[in-house]
């Protein structure tokens, strides 16, 4: 529950995005971060993107 994991944005929708999490695609909410776009990385916690991060940090 306390675990935030980095994920890459694959698609964006209305307040949502599809990300890849450890090889699994799932829809998350991006309501808590500004302007995410495809290819960017975010930290995902409990189905919500909570912070953007660079690809370098994500890896």
């Amino acid at each position, binding site marked *: *529950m*306390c675990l935030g994991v*980095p994920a890459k944005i694959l698609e964006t929708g209305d307040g949502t995005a599809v990300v890849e999490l450890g090889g699994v695609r799932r829809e998350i909410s991006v309501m808590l971060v500004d302007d995410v776009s495809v290819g960017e990385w975010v930290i995902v916690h*409990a189905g919500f993107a909570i912070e953007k991060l660079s690809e370098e940090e*994500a890896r």
Partner: protein
Amino acid sequence: MKYIDDFRDPADREGAGRADPARCGDAPVRLMEVCGTHTVAIARGGIRQLLSGAVTMLSGPGCPVCVTPDGYIDAAIALGRKRGALLASFGDMLRVPGSSSSLEKEKGAGLEVRVVYSPLDAVTLAAATPAGRSSSWSGVRDDGARHRRRH
């Protein structure tokens, strides 16, 4: 992210022990562990012993799972038993005990508990679940065969 590797690097741990009390100013520095996992990781890493007297660690509020009161779990179980409610929970919440049982035990005894990853999944689940479900629960029996399902 290499946080796990970094946290386990002995060189970094020793760095924590070199913290100079003089640089902390007059006031002692208190750092709060937000979550029980932090407390355990800090203890396992031996970090607490390395800190100088100027830095103290305080156990913090705990994440929602760590700090969920027994009564919340009891209430969820009661909703499932008495009203046949479909319960959605984070997976790590299942084993957390209430005053007399846990969601995991109740699930084994027939209560309908679904593990969700996100609160949004619970909303989706609720929207997809008919309000007047045909299933209900017969309640509690004392012989151990609890929550026998009535169809």
